[in-house]
């Protein structure tokens, strides 16, 4: 609900965006963002002066959503970054920093808005065309037959989030888990189009990161008391499952718009309960082993089912319904009457599990694309950060299927791209002469501008020890093994488009 707004006349002011005030606010934002960028970026604590939890992070999505920006222009910048992140998960900080840099440099050159727009569009086209072309030196095709490239990709995402507080060993563990979780969501036999499954992240806070694991199937959290009732689970080859989406609480819904008159002595509750028990009888006679309900089960029905060794779990919630119906192969039942046998599904095995202080019922599927990632970290803040990181990594891995191409990280791609632009512009300057398509004051300016604009300070990992590797890479045009993989091609191109658009506001 939007806040109530005091009625007052509008105030119009024409404030040039090149003013000192805007520049200063932009500078502050840039400072915040650049200092959190990269693996050795500093963490930010965002907290509310009135209380509440403190968010320790260096991730753009957490940072930008918690940071209250007041200036409308910054709002546009952060909103467009957030939208980019919600689409592509990663590279939020990079987008925002590049935006800030570009704006600053454009303002410094003092070109007219029309020129800047043309120039930006031209450079954008240059960059995207180059990145898309086969000749681009920073592109590496993803090799799905070996995990090396994908693992590199995940690792570079995990290492760039220092707020997860991971050691080297833990980083490796988490990266491997994420990759495993992703591979479990890929269906084994696909017909025409690939439909990826889902990884459900199950929280377990206060434990060692190395305790994190990934399981095929679904972990449903149950209370200890409930689990005791269920146990022992009889052994069988397959468990027959019924999944209800309709409420089994015995309430009477949908009686129509008119009135319903009930004569005295008639108990509708009994009538409905009778109906529920009939349903229970049918379930028992159909040899159903597990009954799950999205909503509430009537206690009597629950009792009845447990008497007949049928495991009953209710209040599953709408979020789990789709994965559950996928794992078990059931169709959610919406009827209290006769149930078609085709609606039942099955799971391969059903076993209780205990992780830390939490009890789970583990549904092991025959063959499904759903997996559960049990994620542990020492404290709440670090866990939140780790969860975001894992979601990001999983999303990025999904995107690799769309466009199986990655770019070199560690500032390689940016340096390379900047060099490419510089090369192009200088070529153009010598060959084109006066017939310049872009109306820019002088060739030299274009040269400086483009270089400054598109080069972004290389993030921290490119330390002196990486420098030789990098040079080697440039000279050989080959991939050196330890170079970080960073961005997906798709991501990068969209990112550049975004940056370009956002910067136009400052022209």
């Amino acid at each position, binding site marked *: 609900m*939007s*806040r109530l*707004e*005091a*009625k*007052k*006349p*509008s105030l*119009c002011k*024409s404030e040039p965006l090149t003013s000192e005030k805007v520049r200063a606010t932009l500078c502050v934002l840039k400072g915040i963002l650049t200092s959190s960028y990269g693996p050795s970026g500093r963490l930010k604590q965002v907290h509310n002066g009135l209380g509440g939890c403190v968010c320790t992070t260096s991730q753009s999505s957490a940072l930008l959503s918690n940071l209250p920006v007041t200036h*409308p*222009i910054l*709002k*546009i910048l952060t*909103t467009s970054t957030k*939208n*980019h992140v*919600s*689409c592509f998960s990663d590279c939020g900080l990079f987008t925002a920093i590049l935006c800030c840099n570009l704006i600053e440099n454009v303002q410094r050159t003092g070109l007219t*808005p*029309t020129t800047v*727009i043309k120039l930006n*569009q031209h450079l954008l086209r240059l960059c995207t065309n180059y990145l898309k072309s086969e000749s681009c030196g920073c592109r590496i095709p993803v090799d799905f037959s070996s995990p090396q490239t994908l693992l590199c990709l995940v690792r570079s995402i995990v290492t760039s989030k220092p707020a997860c507080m991971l050691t080297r060993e833990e980083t490796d563990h988490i990266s491997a888990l994420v990759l495993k979780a992703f591979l479990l969501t890929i269906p084994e036999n696909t017909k025409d189009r690939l439909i990826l499954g889902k990884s459900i992240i199950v929280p377990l806070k206060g434990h060692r990161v190395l305790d994190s694991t990934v399981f095929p199937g679904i972990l449903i959290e149950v209370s200890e008391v409930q689990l005791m009732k269920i146990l022992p689970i009889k052994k069988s080859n397959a468990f027959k499952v019924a999944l209800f*989406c*309709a409420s089994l609480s015995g309430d009477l819904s*949908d*009686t*129509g*718009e*008119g*009135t*319903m*008159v009930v*004569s005295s002595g*008639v*108990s*509708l509750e*009994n*009538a409905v309960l*009778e*109906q529920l028990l009939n349903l229970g009888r049918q379930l028992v006679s159909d040899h159903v082993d597990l009954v799950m309900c999205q909503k509430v089960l009537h206690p009597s029905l629950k009792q009845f089912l447990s008497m007949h060794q049928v495991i009953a779990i209710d209040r599953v919630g709408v979020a789990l319904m789709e994965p559950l119906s996928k794992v078990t192969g059931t*169709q*959610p*039942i*919406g*009827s*209290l*009457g*006769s149930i*078609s046998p*085709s*609606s039942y599904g099955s799971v391969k095995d059903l076993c209780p599990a205990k992780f830390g202080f939490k009890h789970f019922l583990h549904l092991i599927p025959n063959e499904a694309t759903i997996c559960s990632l049990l994620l542990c970290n020492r404290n709440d803040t670090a866990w939140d950060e780790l969860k975001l990181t894992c979601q990001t990594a999983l999303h990025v891995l999904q995107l690799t299927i769309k466009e199986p191409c990655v770019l070199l990280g560690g500032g390689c791609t940016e340096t390379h791209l900047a060099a490419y632009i510089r090369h192009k512009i200088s070529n153009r300057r010598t060959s084109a002469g006066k017939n310049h398509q872009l109306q820019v004051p002088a060739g030299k300016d274009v040269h400086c501008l483009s270089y400054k604009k598109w080069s972004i300070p290389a993030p921290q990992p490119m330390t002196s020890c990486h420098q030789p590797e990098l040079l080697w890479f440039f000279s050989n045009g080959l991939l050196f093994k330890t170079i970080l993989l960073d961005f997906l091609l798709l991501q990068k191109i*969209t990112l550049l*488009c*975004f940056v*370009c*658009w*956002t910067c*136009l*506001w400052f022209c």
Partner: protein
Amino acid sequence: TLCTMAALGSAKAALQVTEVLETILSRCLGPEGRQVLCTKPTGEVLISRSGGCLLEALHLEHPIARMVVACVSSHLRRTGDGAKTFIILLCHLLRGLHTVIDKEQDSLISKNIQTHRRHWKNCCQWKFISQALLTFQTQILDYIMDHYLSKHFLCRSSLELLLEAYFCGRVGRNNHYFISQLMCNYFFKCMACESGFEEVFDLVDDYFVELNVGVTGLPVSDSRIIAGLVLHRDFSVYCPADGDIRIVIVTETIQPLFSASASEFILNSEAQFQTSQFWIMEKTKAIVKHLQSQNVKLLLSSVKQPDLVTYYAGLNGISVVECLSPEEVSLIQRVMGLSPFILPQASSQYEICNTASVKFCKPLTLRSKRYVHLGLISTCSFVPHCIVLCGPVQGLVEQHEGALHGAFKMLRQLFKDLDLSYMIQTSDQNHTSSPLTYKDSRESNPLPEIVNGLIQRPYQGTVVKNKGNLAKTQTYLKVYSNLVVPSVELETCIPCSTPKVTPTDTYQTNETLRCLAPTKTRTIDDNEPFIESNSANSTAENTGIEISSENLQVTKIAGKGNMLPVREKSLEMCTSQSYCCSTLPAGCVLPVGGNFEILLHYYLLNYTRKCQQSEESVVSMIIANALLGIPQVLYKSKKGKYSFPQIYIRTLHALQTSQPIVSSQKGLESVAGKYQLLTSVLQCLTKILTIDLVINIRRQPREMYDQDSDEEV
């Protein structure tokens, strides 16, 4: 305490208000216009270049401002274009009126005619003017459009050029080309045959919201066109199907309920309840089974269906989409010619079932949001397609949506015939009685001054004077010499197709004038003296051209001398009116860049010269000058050859020498849109001028019998 506060004079207030609005909107006008950023106290940010959007976003308090905005909105709803031009034009008109009124009052004071002054004051000067405006709008404007302007119109309209020009003023500079291309492609994809394009415009305009999907977080260049219809919701149940997929639409729940509205269901026993529930279940099952037997694979419902229905539908391989909006339902009905499925009351009537086929029916995922994608088979000339509009932020997507919708509205108006009706040959003169003519002759003095004053404002120099006089003479000479003759005009123009226009050829041009007259039925005889005097008039002025510019003043006076007797004569003779109706053919366009405004300005100025009535000519003059405000804003940032004075002079020169007007811009704009805009502005102005007091009350208006407020005062 005083309960009421009154503010006098709406025109003055209106001028102040519109001037404020003008300063905001004029910077968004034209291809060079910039975007405006509005912020709300709630933190929301609005990015826009669209005038309508900005006006509605402003929290305007002043009643006149609110009225103006309401006028703009209603104009936009109809035509989808011209909000910014509306405000700028209105502002210039009000400004023009003020200067004229001030001048007139001054001159009256200097002449010390107390009675007149009182007359002006008492007889509501504004009302006079507003009546004159109405006359102008209903008669003069149509006449000028039909007689003079229409020959400049181009009828070969290129959709690309039209749209490019339109989006130039509506969306950001880096996107306008892409968006206009997108819309062009969309239109051609939607059009089944050449003849059915009007239906496409109608349908897209009516159901625009349903035909586009906004996606945030992707660059604008990812926007695309998808064949088929995208419903803005997910399947409740999805069963993959191919082959012959039949669909039905329902508007009520399939499952029978215990009691319908306004009825009672009496329950006497538990068994009765159970049987009725059983019956409901069986009935639902039977209906779904029946649908399955009809090969129905998709059930579209405008209401939420109970769980039972979706369950049985899923069992029978029927996909279900629930909660469709009424617009979506009516769009599907219109495209497919499918009427909703009426639930059979008795079980025997199952055979009657309205179904239709779709090519495909599948889920569509756009940025992790799921939609329903239907391949409708169209029975009309609209082939359903959807636009997926992407943008980094929601505001930009909305801006593009608004612009696209506006463009469809604009095209819809453009491809409709525009009816013009007016009375030929100064029928107004019948309204004016002799005392007014008497007044006119005296008040004609300030008139030329205004002409010169207003024309000289934008630039200085000798060119102006030449122009003024040239314009005067060439009105008659040039008019029918233009080569572009729209079809409507053809019948009247055939006898005078190629007049040689040179300053000496005055008699020949008079011939053309006479040629024109006979077509207008019986007024020929009455008009004879009028034409004669015109010829006299023009000869006088033609000689004036040959004389050096110093002598121009003399000829002008001579011209005026000629004019006066004419007026008296025509007053006596033109007693009969004849109505003339003509149509501006659909698809008339003009090059962008203020061409329409300059042309209309030119012809209006000419018209005022031969016009006999003071109010009429004053009003025409004000409008003519106000029109120039638009190109002035458009060319504000241009320098040198493309500055406004240069372009203005060039255009006028071309008009006088009857050369084709060379426009520096390729884009085109709709004539009908401009015409409608002008009439809307004039209506709004008339509305403003008829108000004389703004009363600010602090409470709700009460019933008449309530005496309390009076006593308090």
